[in-house]
């Protein structure tokens, strides 16, 4: 029989809130993170980094370092593969500088020694001679005529002629005739917005332990969101056959997109190959800030026209993003997400990807989308104020829904934006009275979500319990969600299932845990793998009973004859079938491999109350409500956690987090003291409302939830602060000095 477990109601396990499977390990310290691995004969490594924002490397002298006691190997760019192209070349260039150091903190050499202290001392003894070059760290300045050219010939064919060579990618999309649309408007507002780069702020610094022999075979343990990607990239950067490098993902202390690429892993392997010993490499927090991948900073112009009844007649946005000294700033996502929540007849969005002397940006939770929402939703808020319109009603009036055309092209399938707006409007928060000095802001947000290449394998044990092997590192509770989905199909308790993140040698290829894809794609594959096992379980029962396989069905963890005609047999429990599986046809497993393409998009609406101290410019977020479409919340506590986490990171980004560069192009706040992520006392209890509009592309209706939650906060908080302060805030972060300046200029103006 072909089993199909698809359903959106009547769940037994999905939608419950059992204990997390990794909880015991994490509270007892048994969980092994990146830096927890050791190996006999292990060396410790340290990386020499450029102190300059932009400098030609004239000479690297490793003589003194190599002569030091305990030092076993030094590597420079010469120890990596040559002839790379495309993104592999970009990654190598970032992992170990070639001719030129492109940002403060850019790796130029590395050393391995018998102790961490020796490695650090030897690193300091490496002598590098630089010729300092002019630098630029600001996105607008990098586009100006006369700005230092960071790399010639880096622009691709998308870039129109006449732009500065630092503009390396260009995007334009939309439909209709925006000028005609603006002509229909009763009010057009155009404004300029700026956001600063922020860091994902994961608590665990990058760490790895690598072993690579002269035979080209290697082992790598590392903290990553995607170990097949690490395998592929490291093999390329070191000139290995991909399959000869086995990569195991450690338990992960946060990633948020920042661990979707490699920074130190190829260096540890190169050192290991040279020293013929295992090499451990752990970044310091300062290295994480300087030389991993923060998000882009932006400069944006948004123009929106509206009729007095709230109808948006046209919208246009220009989004300039710098992503460091390499192509890849997610300006395309910024442009595509900007107006996605709205059903627009006339819309146009333009994006610029600009090089600067900063670290190579990496993904950060819905890369590019939060900034777009900040600009767009601020302008909509201002229009609503000027036209005296309710901000939720106005958004409802223009909301995208099934069948309307997205601002970036396709027609929407079933989506849940309207439902989130209606739930927000009905929430007591929306009508609660505000205290003096407080303001309320709302914002919508959008993220695509992703499917991606996925393999899952499920194996039954003799006692009727099951183990699932997935290849997507668990960054948001996915092991619990996989176990719940498998429990639903197998009809056995959640506790009887163990889900493990398999290494690259134990399972087929898996794309990175990114794009909010895991609960969707690995979940879908888990359901299919469990269905395959159930089919085999039914087949064994059919054989035992001597009836056709399609006369057996599966319910509550038992095989049952499908009706009186099939025969009169007692239900056969799973454990009875598995107990004899060796003798009845062999091990019972299920597996599934695919690139599922039905990831349902997710929309959210956030409500924020902020209070501004007009004497100091200090802001306190006093109330926060997240309303988001989860499709189906498999483990609601984790879903709520994702909602709250996105809001918390958004509060930091909106109010205090920023990369601060000096005139010398050096990063001034490479630590958590002056890079201010929120502490617990900075945050209110963040309320959550889970909206469930099932995703037709998933058997249980699941939509990814991890990223959408960070899309609305910047705008919602900016709208709340602007309302509280009585002055429009157009630049992030809205730190106290900036709010005070805005209040001062409003008073002067």
């Amino acid at each position, binding site marked *: 029989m072909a089993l199909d477990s698809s359903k959106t109601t009547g769940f037994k396990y999905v939608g419950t809130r059992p204990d997390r499977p990794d909880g015991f390990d994490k509270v007892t310290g048994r969980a092994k993170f990146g830096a927890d691995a050791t190996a006999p004969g292990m060396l410790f490594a340290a990386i020499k980094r450029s102190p300059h924002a932009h400098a030609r490397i004239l000479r690297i002298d490793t003589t003194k370092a190599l002569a030091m006691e305990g030092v076993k190997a030094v590597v420079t760019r010469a120890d990596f593969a040559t002839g790379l192209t495309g993104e592999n070349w970009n990654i190598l260039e970032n992992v170990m500088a070639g001719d030129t150091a492109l940002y403060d903190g850019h790796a130029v050499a590395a050393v391995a020694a018998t102790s961490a202290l020796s490695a650090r001392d030897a690193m300091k003894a490496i002598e590098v001679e630089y010729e300092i070059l002019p630098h630029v760290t600001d996105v607008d300045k990098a586009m100006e005529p006369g700005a230092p050219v960071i790399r010639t010939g880096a622009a691709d064919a998308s870039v129109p002629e006449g732009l500065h060579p630092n503009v390396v990618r260009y995007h334009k999309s939309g439909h209709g005739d925006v000028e005609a649309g603006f002509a229909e408007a009763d009010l057009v507002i155009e404004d300029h917005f700026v956001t600063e780069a922020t860091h994902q702020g994961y608590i665990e610094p990058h760490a790895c332990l690598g072993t690579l022999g002269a035979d080209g075979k290697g082992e790598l343990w590392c903290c990553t969101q995607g170990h097949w990607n690490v395998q592929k990239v490291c093999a390329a950067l070191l000139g290995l056959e991909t399959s000869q490098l086995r990569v195991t993902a450690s338990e992960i202390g946060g990633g948020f997109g920042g661990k979707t690429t490699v920074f130190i892993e190829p260096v540890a392997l190169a050192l290991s190959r040279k020293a013929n010993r295992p090499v451990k490499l752990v970044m310091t927090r300062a290295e994480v800030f300087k030389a991993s991948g923060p998000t882009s900073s932006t400069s944006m112009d948004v123009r929106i026209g509206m009729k007095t009844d709230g109808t948006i007649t046209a919208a246009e946005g220009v989004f300039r993003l710098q992503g460091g000294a390499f192509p890849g700033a997610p300006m395309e996502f910024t442009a595509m997400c900007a107006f996605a929540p709205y059903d627009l007849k006339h819309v146009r969005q333009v994006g610029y990807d600009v090089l600067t002397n900063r670290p190579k940006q990496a993904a950060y939770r819905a890369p590019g989308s939060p900034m777009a929402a900040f600009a767009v939703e601020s302008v909509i808020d201002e229009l609503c104020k000027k036209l005296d319109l309710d901000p939720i009603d106005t958004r409802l009036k223009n909301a995208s829904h099934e069948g309307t055309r997205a601002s970036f092209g396709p027609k929407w399938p079933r989506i849940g934006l309207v439902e989130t707006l209606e739930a927000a409007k009905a929430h007591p928060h929306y009508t609660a009275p505000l205290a003096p000095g407080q303001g309320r802001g709302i914002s919508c947000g959008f993220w695509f979500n992703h499917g991606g290449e996925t393999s899952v394998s499920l194996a039954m044990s003799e006692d009727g319990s099951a183990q699932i092997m997935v290849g997507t590192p668990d960054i948001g509770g996915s092991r619990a969600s996989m176990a719940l989905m498998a429990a639903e199909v197998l009809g056995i308790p959640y506790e009887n299932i163990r889900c493990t993140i398999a290494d690259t040698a134990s399972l087929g290829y898996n794309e990175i845990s990114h794009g909010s894809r895991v609960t969707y794609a690995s979940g879908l594959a888990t359901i299919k793998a469990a269905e395959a096992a159930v089919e085999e379980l039914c087949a064994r029962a059919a054989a035992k009973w001597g009836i056709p396989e399609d006369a057996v069905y599966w319910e509550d963890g038992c095989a049952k004859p499908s009706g009186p005609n099939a025969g009169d047999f007692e239900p056969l429990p799973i454990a009875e079938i598995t107990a004899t599986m060796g003798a009845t046809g062999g091990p019972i497993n299920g597996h599934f491999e695919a690139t599922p393409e039905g990831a349902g998009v997710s929309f959210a609406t956030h409500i924020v109350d902020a209070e501004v101290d007009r004497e100091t410019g*200090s802001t306190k977020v006093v109330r926060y409500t997240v309303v988001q479409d989860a499709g189906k919340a498999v483990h609601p506590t984790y879903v709520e956690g994702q909602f709250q986490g996105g809001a918390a990171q958004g509060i930091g980004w909106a109010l205090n987090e920023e990369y601060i560069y000096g005139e010398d192009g050096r990063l001034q706040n490479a630590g958590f003291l*002056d890079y201010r992520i929120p*502490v617990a006392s900075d945050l209110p209890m963040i309320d959550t409302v889970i909206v469930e509009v099932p995703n037709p592309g998933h058997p249980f209706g699941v939509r990814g939830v991890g990223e959408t939650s960070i899309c609305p906060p910047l705008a919602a908080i900016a709208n709340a602060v602007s309302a509280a302060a009585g002055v429009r805030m157009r630049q992030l972060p809205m730190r106290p*000095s900036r709010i005070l300046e805005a209040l001062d200029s409003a008073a002067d103006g």
Partner: protein
Amino acid sequence: MQYHRPATFEDAVTLAAGAQGVTRFLAGGTDVLVQMRSDIVTPDTLIDIKAIPGTHDITRQEDGGWRIGVAVTGAEMREHAELDRDWPGLVEAMDLIGSTQVQGRATLTGNLCNASPAADSVPAMIAAGVTATITGPDGSRTAPVEEIPAGPGKTSLARGEMITALHVPPRGTGGGDAYLRFIPRTEMDIAVVGCGVNLVVEGDTITHARVTLGAVAPTAVLVHAAEDALVGRTLDEEALTALADLAEASCNPIDDKRGTIRFRTHVAGVLARRAAKIAYDRAKGAAK
């Protein structure tokens, strides 16, 4: 690097006086160890003073004042009910430093000798009139704490000299102190501006006033003119405005990643008003 753990101040002073290169005293280590790990300071000699008897004691003196040992931690001060009753501003200034874990290590003397312009406890100590006993190869002397920091990261202590105790004056009657700081977050941060106020009142009239500012100059600033502006009057709106103006005028800050000159100067005035109100209420409460 040499690590020493002397049992007496005499031994500590002898070690410090005879040491070559960079010497650091180690109490809680919340500055020294962090600086070592960040390559800011690599001491040649590290002298741990925590084994010296009496360094962990908070002792009431005969005159009603307090002697605070050099290894007394913020947490020990916070939990000392009598000290907190006398000098809540001083205790809360120390308590604002760092996390719970840091509070278990950090010391008042360490905060003073680290000589950061933004040190939270220093403006509160100066406002309270705290003095230090300093012991060196040539014997002991006493100095008001405002004379210890000489600039960012620098103290006026001579080679071989160390602080052996801090002395908080008797509170007397009708006294109240307060300390406020401005940080962009709610905790775990460094003062962008700090302000300590110590008042004594008779009825509603102020008879003694000391107002200090942190993080607005290379060392903590005693707003001398505040005493004239406040003594002999009640803390009415006119007095508060005068105080805020004097506080702003006393600022000599820098522009840096933590705050601009304009912001720091403005907020100094705001905090002076707010801290003065708290100190005034406490003083009036104590006078009842």
